[in-house]
């Protein structure tokens, strides 16, 4: 087996490559070995993990019923923001994409609700992911009225952004920064909720290279880590389901009232269909998603309009 360290980066790409399909006897065996190897690596570090976890502070919520949740949420206006997208070419066969962002708002206890949308049709040259993120952040800003509690399905410090080109990275960080700033100015609480987080903030601060959620796998149900600060952002890990913990992020000004805010997050999760994911985000996702039927409708409309690649290229 070649020594991985001695390989050039270009050669590293081909290291452990194999000549068969992923879904084949060989492919599945490699896949299984890869997963087992990763778990063995984690197991080896378990003692170190335990040492790290023992230095962290945890809180716990004792109430776990929906009856308790509605008491917490009574009279609160809670808004969930989520988006969806159609990438150009891959799904269309033509260079047009689309982004649709929904903000679902509910006045708990009063039976009032509504959905607002922001949408955009994109050209091939535009980065769909970055446009979607910017639009989601814009929607959050629009909903900051000093009365509502906002939930966003994602992170305000997307870990992948730092790996992108500096121009794109700047757009991500700038959009999120504006939301955090506006939240403080309008005193509108906002939570970024990441169900499956791949952040390594805690682990890295202890010199470990593992996802924080793996590190915290053993957290008790209905518990949370005391919030930690990272620049202008605070984060905490919450465990509201038997699987890995989720990550919540919020601006630092909210730190003082964290104990009451965490109850709102947990109450929203208890209302959700899985008891582990905020109800308002579940609804926002439902309204934001561009269904298969809608995708087909768009494709049909485009076909009828006889839009061709040649035609679009002339627009540029």
């Amino acid at each position, binding site marked *: 087996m070649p020594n991985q360290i001695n390989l050039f980066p270009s050669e590293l790409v081909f290291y452990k490559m194999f000549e068969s399909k992923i879904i084949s006897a060989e492919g599945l065996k490699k896949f299984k070995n890869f997963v087992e190897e990763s778990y063995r690596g984690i197991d080896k570090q378990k003692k170190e993990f335990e040492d790290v976890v023992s230095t962290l502070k945890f809180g716990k919520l004792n109430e776990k*019923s*929906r*009856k308790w949740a*509605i008491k917490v*949420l009574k009279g609160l206006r809670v808004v969930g923001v989520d988006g969806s997208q159609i990438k150009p070419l891959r799904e269309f066969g033509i260079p047009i994409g689309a982004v649709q962002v929904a903000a*679902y708002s*509910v006045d*708990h*206890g*009063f*039976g*009032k*609700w509504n959905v607002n949308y922001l949408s955009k049709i994109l050209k091939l040259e535009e980065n769909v992911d970055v446009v979607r993120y910017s639009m989601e952040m814009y929607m959050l800003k629009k909903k900051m009225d000093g009365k509502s509690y906002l939930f966003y399905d994602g992170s305000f410090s997307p870990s992948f952004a730092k790996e992108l080109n500096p121009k794109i990275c700047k757009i991500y960080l700038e959009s999120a920064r504006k939301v955090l700033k506006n939240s403080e100015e309008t005193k509108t609480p906002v939570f970024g909720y990441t169900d499956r987080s791949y952040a390594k903030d805690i682990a890295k601060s202890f010199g470990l290279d593992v996802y924080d959620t793996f590190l915290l796998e053993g957290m008790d149900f209905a518990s949370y880590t005391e919030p930690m600060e990272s620049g202008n952002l605070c984060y905490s890990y919450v465990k509201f389901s038997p699987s890995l913990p989720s990550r919540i992020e919020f601006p630092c000004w909210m730190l003082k009232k964290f104990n009451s805010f965490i109850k709102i997050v947990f109450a929203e999760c208890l*209302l959700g*269909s899985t008891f582990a994911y905020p*109800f308002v985000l579940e*609804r926002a996702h439902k309204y934001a998603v561009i269904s298969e*039927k809608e995708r087909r*409708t768009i494709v*049909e*409309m485009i076909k*009828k309009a006889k839009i061709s690649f040649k035609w679009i290229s002339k627009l540029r």
Partner: protein
Amino acid sequence: MRVVKVFDRFFEVNGNLKVGEIVKAGDCLGVVVSVVGEEPEYAKYIGELSRDEIKAYMPDILERTVVSRCYILKGMGENVSPEVGEEVCLVSDEDLKKFHTKDGEFRMPYFYNLLKTCDIDITKKILLRLKKVFENEEIIDILIKEVEYMMMHHMK
């Protein structure tokens, strides 16, 4: 309400209409032949909360999505079907008159196909609506009687 799907001689509308109602979609006229309601999402959230509590705290999960299927009676031109996304509304008496008049005379060219394809009761509902618009058209009275006879015959 808008057209969400078009197939053969039918189109579907995302709205709660009544069977037998006549609608207009662009240059087309259609009659509602069935209404299908998707189950509300209530079942996913069922648990310790009462229906009233759900209504107060999670109101939209009680709402049903309804799709009304319409049979295309007539296009202004031949073989016309509505576009997906076209706005749909209940047809006015004025439009109904326009759709059924040619050279100053009452016309109902879809009658035979309607009887072949749709419930006979729907045909009767259309005729009764037309009778209100074309009060003096004896042919409509005859058709109503014919349809009633067919219904009786069918019952036998």
